[in-house]
């Protein structure tokens, strides 16, 4: 019971009957809370002295990682595609459906008031997680892709039109963008005539910042770039980019899918106009993501999807719209998922994003170094150095071996889960001159041993296929 009060303050207000009725459930919950609190106390008490890494401690919270696949222990190295969820997040989702599931915002009765409270609390948690000034700057969407589409259709269609100037408005992207940050702008450009320009890579295999700076002109209306690349593992200097863009009156949209889960992201410091992220990459459930937009921008934007929730008054011939964020949240939202995302924010904050980032920087270096030591391996993106910090992922190719073969064998024979393909970055792969690549991506629940297992499996795979040449 003490655990309940501490970890989920919202349950203080829950009717006592609910807790006493679910006796078996509470046993299970208290066990998992015990597990969670012990893992966290280990984190706080023994951080300085013990040799057990964050990865080892965190693993206990992720039951899914403790299984065998194809006869070997699962080594999950695909967190850039989706992250695993800790027990606390799963419980939050279960709790919602089990104790207070109800539609939000419109209801009068107890359950719906409770659901609404928790839903809006989750919004506040997300706002706090990225240091937004107001929770109304957080719009819940289905995922980051939908969030970018929201900006494209709502802000883009009305702001990327030629207007008075004769020349077409410019949108600046990079060749390394994820498809979700390319295709919506292509759609908008087809409708409005806006021109898209792409920044290419420099010799360090990162987007050329000087080129980006030069591209920015009075014609530029939007710069839409990633914070951390899901293929190259490089980061862009968003703060500087925002300064340059704002000088010419352009807006900046940041695709923070690979940064928000792994490091401190402070939208006040970055000063970006729009920022998007997905819940499922940051220990939250699928089906929910968010758009951060500065208040004055959101207020001026027309709706994206039409329906309930986003309206103020509806007549037969016209309707008036609600204020943001509701204006952009048509229909019943993914309530349970939003609440679980809030729980994910809590979980990550409890560990501490700086701590997670520090651990991952170390892991990233270890991964890069051990992978680079395997012969015939070509890793994409910059080399880690004093000035360059890579994200904890490596996209790579082995000479003479198709990444699909590699990934298949790693999975079938060694239980190692990596991704092979273009990782939703076909233009980047075309630019690099390859059809596909393999990618191993880590999160704070991975350990050095995971990396070691991967490298051993990789060596075995390479020798197996080489023997057939």
């Amino acid at each position, binding site marked *: 019971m003490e655990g309940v009060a501490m970890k989920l303050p919202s349950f203080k207000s829950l009717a006592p009957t609910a807790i006493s009725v679910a006796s078996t459930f509470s046993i299970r919950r208290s066990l998992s809370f015990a597990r969670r609190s012990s893992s966290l106390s280990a984190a706080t008490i023994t951080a300085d002295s013990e040799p057990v890494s964050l990865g080892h401690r965190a693993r206990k919270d992720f039951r899914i990682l403790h299984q065998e696949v*194809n006869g070997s222990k699962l080594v999950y190295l695909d967190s850039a595609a989706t992250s695993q969820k800790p027990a606390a997040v799963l419980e939050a989702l279960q709790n919602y459906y089990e104790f207070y599931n109800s539609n939000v915002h419109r209801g009068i009765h107890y359950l719906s008031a409770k659901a609404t409270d928790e839903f809006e609390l989750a919004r506040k948690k997300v706002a706090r997680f990225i240091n937004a000034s107001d929770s109304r700057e957080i719009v819940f969407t289905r995922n980051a892709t939908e969030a970018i589409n929201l900006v494209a259709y709502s802000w883009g269609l009305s702001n990327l039109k030629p207007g008075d100037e004769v020349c077409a408005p410019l949108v600046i992207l990079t060749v390394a963008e994820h498809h979700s940050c390319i295709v919506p702008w292509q759609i908008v450009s087809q409708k409005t005539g806006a021109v898209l320009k792409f920044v290419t890579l420099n010799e360090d295999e990162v987007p050329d910042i000087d080129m980006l700076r030069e591209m920015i002109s009075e014609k530029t209306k939007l710069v839409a770039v990633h914070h951390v690349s899901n293929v190259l593992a490089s980061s862009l200097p968003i703060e500087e980019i925002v300064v340059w863009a704002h000088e010419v009156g352009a807006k900046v949209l940041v695709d923070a899918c690979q940064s928000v889960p792994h490091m401190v992201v402070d939208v006040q410091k970055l000063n970006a106009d729009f920022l998007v992220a997905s819940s499922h990459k940051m220990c939250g459930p699928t089906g929910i993501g968010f758009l951060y937009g500065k208040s004055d921008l959101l207020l001026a934007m027309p709706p994206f999807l039409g329906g309930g929730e986003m309206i103020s008054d509806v007549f037969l011939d016209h309707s008036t719209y609600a204020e943001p964020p509701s204006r952009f949240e048509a229909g019943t939202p993914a309530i349970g998922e939003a609440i679980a995302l809030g729980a994910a924010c809590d979980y990550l904050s409890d560990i501490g994003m700086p701590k997670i980032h520090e651990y991952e920087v170390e892991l990233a270096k270890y991964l890069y170094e051990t992978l680079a030591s395997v012969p015939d391996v070509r890793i994409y993106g910059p080399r880690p150095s004093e000035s360059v910090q890579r994200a904890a992922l490596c996209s790579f190719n082995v000479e003479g071996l*198709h990444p*699909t*073969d590699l990934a298949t064998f790693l999975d079938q024979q060694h239980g190692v889960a990596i991704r092979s393909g*273009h990782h939703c970055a076909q233009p980047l792969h075309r630019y690099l001159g390859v059809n*596909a690549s393999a990618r191993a991506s880590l999160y704070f629940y991975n350990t050095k041993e995971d990396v070691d297992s991967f490298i051993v499996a990789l060596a075995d795979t390479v020798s*197996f296929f080489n023997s057939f040449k």
Partner: protein
Amino acid sequence: MAASMSSSCYLSSLRLIPFNRTFFSSVNPPSKNLILRPIPSFLRTIVTFLKIPTVIVSPLSASSSPSSSVDLQPIEELPPKLQEIVKLFQSVQEPKAKYEQLLFYGKNLKPLDSRFKTRENKVEGCVSQVWVRAFFDEERNVVYEADSDSVLTKGLAALLVNGLSGRPVTEILRVTPDFAVLLGLQQSLTPSRNNGFLNMLKLMQKKALSLEVKAEEGTSESTTDEASVVEVDLESKPPSVVEVEESESVSNVVALGSRGMRIREKLEKELNPVELEVEDVSYQHAGHAAVRGSAGADGETHFNLRVVSDAFQGKSLVKRHRMVYDLLQEELQSGLHALSIVAKTPAEV
């Protein structure tokens, strides 16, 4: 009539492909679309009716299926070379050895000339690049060539090439991806966009069919039955299976031959119908390979049946169709290719 016709056709086409049921428990329509999509709509008609007898007559296949729990296509229905390959893989227990075997096939695959690595020859939905080429030999058997930049995929392609090359179109079209399960390679059979193996097989079947169609269009019709032969203009056939049957059955009434009479007798005797219509629509399928040669001299291969009987009371649509098929087993085994069934109770008419 049209509604029930369409539902019977829908069910018929669903039942064609057993893995539809067994592997994709979640959503049926996408898998149905996946099977039908690559094949142009007018050709879909032919493929639909072609496949029914091998699957519906399940009492036969159940016993011979090696995998007891699931209704897989029996191995005997596969082309001989493919049967051999499947048996070979089954005899190799260790997964690593299976992969070695697969790679061995791939290594010995005849290389594909780069001028054949075109868009039409590319298999959709593969993360690796796979090309397949098909052409007829002198005996109108299909010969395949293939290549891939991924060695595992090349192995799979080689497997299919070795297993299907040199065989007639009908045999190739009968193959379902079930045998991949028997190989034990754990190649996923879900109809996702990225399932290269499934798409490879489908492309090979599609190419076989289009070779056949092209050859047919080159020659005049050559059936020998006494029924009035209608030049089947494949290009202009309406897209839905339903409409084909409806529009053409009215204007071309054909006298029943011996098989038609037998069907009528059997159904009358066993089902005691209030209404019974037996219509021979074989001429609509005259000219395609399944009809030629395998139907025997009478050429009676395709029928529309309309049966109204109390015997169907309380039975689901599937059960009703089953009843009819069971009664006509003998015919199905001796050259009857396809039935389109409307089965109603008197109350439903």
